[in-house]
């Protein structure tokens, strides 16, 4: 079922360099999308537009057939979107539990346990956790937001291979088991292979490289 739709979306920096041109794509619940592309091609920009951090210069982005600009970008971010970043972006003076509680929709303890953090780890200062643990907290925060769309920008970029695999599996589970729409921007081919749909951004245009059938 389609939840997000991009219609003829275009974006340029300072009205000069056009980064995204005429992007039209439909994103569905229960699928994980990987967005590949060379550095500077606009992957993060695409994610920012979908997540309501910025507005497209052309076209619209619809969620449940409603223009996100009309429903309010802040509201859209709060209700519909959860971000996961490469550098985790946790708030350093809050514990994992408090970081997760920022989004406030689901009980933090349960969510943190579901991502594999112990009670003791939940009470530590986030800066004293490993990279993998911090990314789990970030995922827990995204899950606790109970958002239908999870946007992940290079979520395994700072992690070792084994941890990257674990995180990838979690994202897959978010899509398939929790029925979220997960969009992952990545350079990692291994991660991209785990996605249901692989998209490629090149010269501002998007194309579907691979699409797995239902049942995968």
């Amino acid at each position, binding site marked *: 079922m389609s939840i997000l739709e991009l219609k003829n979306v275009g974006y340029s920096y300072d009205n000069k360099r056009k980064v995204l041109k005429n992007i039209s794509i439909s994103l569905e619940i229960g699928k994980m999308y990987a967005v590949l592309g060379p550095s500077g091609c606009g992957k993060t920009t695409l994610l920012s537009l979908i997540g309501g*951090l910025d507005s497209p210069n052309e076209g619209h982005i619809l969620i449940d057939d409603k223009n996100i600009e009309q429903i309010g970008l802040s509201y859209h971010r709060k209700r519909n979107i959860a971000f996961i970043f490469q550098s985790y972006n946790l708030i350093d003076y809050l514990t994992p539990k408090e970081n997760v509680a920022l989004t406030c929709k689901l009980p933090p303890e349960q969510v943190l346990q579901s991502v594999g953090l112990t009670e003791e780890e939940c009470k530590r200062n986030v800066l004293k956790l490993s990279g993998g643990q911090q990314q789990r907290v970030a995922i827990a925060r995204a899950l606790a937001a109970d958002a239908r769309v999870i946007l992940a920008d290079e979520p395994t970029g700072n992690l070792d291979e084994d941890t990257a695999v674990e995180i990838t599996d979690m994202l897959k589970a978010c899509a398939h088991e929790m029925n979220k729409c997960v969009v992952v921007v990545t350079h990692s081919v291994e991660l991209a292979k785990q996605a249901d749909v692989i998209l490629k951004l090149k010269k501002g245009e998007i194309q579907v490289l691979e699409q797995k059938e239902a049942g995968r």
Partner: protein
Amino acid sequence: MNFLKRAYLYLVRKKVKTLFLFITLLIIATMLLTCISIQTAANNGVVNIKKSLRSYFTINAKQLPEGLNEKILKNILSIDGVNGEYILRSYTKAIYLDNNKNLLKIKTEGAATIPLGCENAGKIIGSSNSEKDSYFIEGGFKVIEGNHITLDQKNVILLHRDFAYKNGISLGDTIVIKNLENPELHVEVIVQGLFMNTREQNVGMTPSYDLYENVAFTDIVTSSKLIFGKLNNVFQYGDIYVDNPEQLDNIINNVEAISGVQWEKCILTKYDQGYQNTKRALETLQNIVFATMIVVMIVSFIILVLILTFSVRNRMHEIGVLLSIGMSKSAIVLQQLVEIFIITVFALVISYMTSFLLAEQVGNSLLAKTTKEYRVVEQKNNNNAVIEKDSELEKEVRMSHIEVTISELDYLVVWIVGMALCSITTVFAMIPIIKMKPKNILSQMS
């Protein structure tokens, strides 16, 4: 998690930053409260000195042959603004005799001149209150036996101790004083007290009758008889005290409007220099403090904006994260405001104590200024004519202390100003962030 809880957690977990901001705000609040308290104290000081630094005017009726009498005095005392306090004075020279009409010896050693006819004469000062005479207040004279002369007394005299001892005179003895120029005018007086000088006389050109040992004080009735041959209180000089030094000019005009006196032959002089000097000192203090307060506020605003701008830039990461999870900009600004409010409240509470300790020290050191009170001193020649009026420093009124307290109103003003300053500077510091798109904030983060 709401912005209140986030604000609380930030403050308790980022202790160093919180403490730094707290100390900065404490210093600002203390300085503001100190300035305001000193300003208020200086304002009160101006009011208080009107009462405490007594101002008066002197009527010099020396040139009036008939002097000034009780009726005129009564008219003067009835003028609005005259507080009823006065000192009457008269001056003459008299020969001293014992009760057997034998001449008493005066001191002549050290005198520049012994004028003809003054070989046994001394200066007589008739006074309604000898204790307030300048010889006793500023001249270093001190009564060592007996009592001072007051308004209700008559036919009494205070003699210099050395003069009394030289002539074998004791308390209670009777002597005669005879007007040097008009020997028919003489009065029998009882020695009521003996005085001495605590400071050496700077003799210079002093004639014999002006040597300290030869000076005597009588009551105003005696001097009235001695000089004017009148039994009631007639006097040459009057020091009339007023309630409000600002009214002196007006009061003097009203005195000169009293009929029956040749005011053109009299000299009326106001003495409020002490009040004016102290008032000027306090007004200068007020101006300094006011200027300091403005500077403190401007500098505080700039410092706070810089500190908060720097702090907000350092929290760009946190702001970006909060925006990305759907927090509104207003909620983020509110968190910052709550943080600054909490710190400000603590700083303001403690500033009450710190400024209480500081205000009095600063206020007094700023006011370590001397006010000087000048008196006109008459220099007379042999013929009793005024030849010169000299200003002579006779009295120093040192104003080194002001009563500094922190009133509720001052404290409330500082609270309001402090809170307003912090709110404005916080919003000011947040403006650049608020104007940025979340994407740009996150770009800066990465």
